[in-house]
């Protein structure tokens, strides 16, 4: 693989502007109430921003498959941690183990 890929300056500045705009968007959306969608919207915007940083500032778009796999693996494992922890807290009492009634 070529070890050096120079990303054009205009991409850097384009990404920078996009990040600033998205920061504004996320603040703006936060002032409005979308009910259950508040958190997903905020996280989606943050995820988009993070992807821009990872792909362009961190050159992952131009990197080897291996680097891309590593970048993906870190976040994938984070998701494993969150999903498998939350599945407990979200399902407490789903089977009537701890409900104290009748």
């Amino acid at each position, binding site marked *: 693989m070529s070890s050096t890929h120079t990303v054009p300056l205009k991409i850097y500045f384009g990404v920078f502007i996009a990040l600033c705009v998205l920061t504004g968007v996320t603040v703006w959306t936060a002032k409005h109430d979308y009910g259950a969608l508040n958190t997903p919207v905020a996280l989606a915007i943050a995820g988009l921003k993070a992807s821009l940083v990872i792909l362009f500032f961190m050159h992952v778009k131009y990197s080897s498959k*291996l680097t891309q796999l590593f970048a993906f693996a870190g976040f994938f*494992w984070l998701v494993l941690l969150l999903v*498998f922890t939350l599945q407990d*807290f*979200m*399902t*407490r009492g*789903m*089977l009537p183990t701890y409900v104290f009634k009748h």
Partner: protein
Amino acid sequence: MSSTVLSPSAKASPSSPEGERKTFLNADYGWKSWLFTVDHKRIAVLYLISIMVFFLIGGTFALLMRAELLTAKGDLFEAETYNKLFTMHGVVMIFFFLVPSIPAVLGNFLVPIMVGTKDLAFPKINLLSWYIYIVGGAATLFVAITGGIDTGWTFYAPYSSTYANTNVAGTAVAVFITGFSSILTGLNFIVTIHKMRAPGMTWFRMPLFLWAQYATSLIMVLGTPVLAITIVLLGLERVFHIGIFDPALGGDPVLFQHLFWFYSHPAVYIMILPGMGVISEIIACFSKKRMFGYHFIAFSSLAIAIFGFVVWGHHMFVSGQSAYASFVFSFLTMLVAIPSAVKVFNWTATLYKGQVSLETPMLYALGFIGLFTIGGLTGVFLAVMGLDRHVHDTYFVVAHFHYVMVGGMVMAFMGGMHFWWSKMFGRKYPEWIAQFSSVVVFVGFNFTFFPQFLLGYMGMPRRYHQYNAEFEVLNVLSSAGASILGTGFLMTICYFIWSLKWGQVAERNPWGAKGLEWERAPSPPPTFNFEDGERIVVTEDAYAYTHEEPHGGSLQEARK
């Protein structure tokens, strides 16, 4: 291995006039040349010495515990002393012996040689990892000397965060520090295996030891940081009382268990996977045969590493975890049992139509297969939800994980040390006494831990300083076994040390084994592992003990 490079006899070997060959051991003298070395082999030796110190300390704690448990009454130590003993035994053995043992000693020594390069990718980071380990270890010893800790190695909140009066913060610091040593080792192995393989050393020509080390390293890198942050939170909670795990302030102690086991269950695989790698090497060598189902063993290591991350909840079936979560975790645990079973079957099948000989490493390897089979199968007992409700937190659990950790991992470590001892130090250990002591270890082990399965099902809870009289007979058996086991280990350490000076000088490849470390590196290897200027080129699959019969085509495919 056939190769493009001249054999050492035909090559001007860099020997001094007296005929003493330069090796990594005599390349340089003085304590500085050891403490500031960046040679992976010297670092491996440093690790070997330090983990043996911790093994002896942890073993002493264990023998003291077994002495207390000889009688049903708590008559030898105070309850608090006993609680400190089992806690320190767990902390020392897990974080300072089992986790680093095979990766940091055998892995450090062998990974660069096996991939055919001069050193690990980051030699200085490798040395740093040893220093971090030593700092963490020193902190642990400091805690042990200044009063110890009594929370159990699992540090469950809120006992550890609020109620314990012992030095939880100091131990947390020690474990936190040591974690980074483990992370750095894992990181180094991953990069080395990806980027430093010699020409021709394709992934599927790698010895299975490397596959196991790679899988282990993945867990070290992915799991250890979560333990680190969990311990930071525990420390913050303990010192500032901010409520993270304190139910009185809205915190949830079960969250601690989730975060703790996210690392500590995969950590079990950190401890056993490298052992499985060692066993693969030994079985192939002493059967003089290619591994049966090489690809399946290789991928089963990865499968264990990956699936091992999503089964931690099986430690928490009765913790108050939701029944639904327990259901999912139990199911996934069943899946992770399968790759282990596949390995056991493949090892056994490798013996078929081979040339089996029973030198000490092989005795340990066969012992490993038997004991690990029992350890693994009893793990399934614990993963079966309805049964775990009875045996959870009893001696059944203690017996199970000692079958995996001691019967598995320590047997593999002993086997590996015997196997590569002559490569590391250029001297042979005395074979007959080694075979005898391996039998002593095997017998002692089973006497120690098999009775504990029975005790556990009878209902004896773990971490009990005193217990009901009806459990006494089995406990006496167990304690007697522990003394046999301890004797076996001590014998081994003695003849190993003896052999360093008086052992028979070892040739390059005493076992007639395949692999770069045997065929291409002298015993002991020089500083840069292979003879001067030699660039390793690999042209064969691993374990090329036999040659392809004409009808097979897989070797040609592998050479593409």
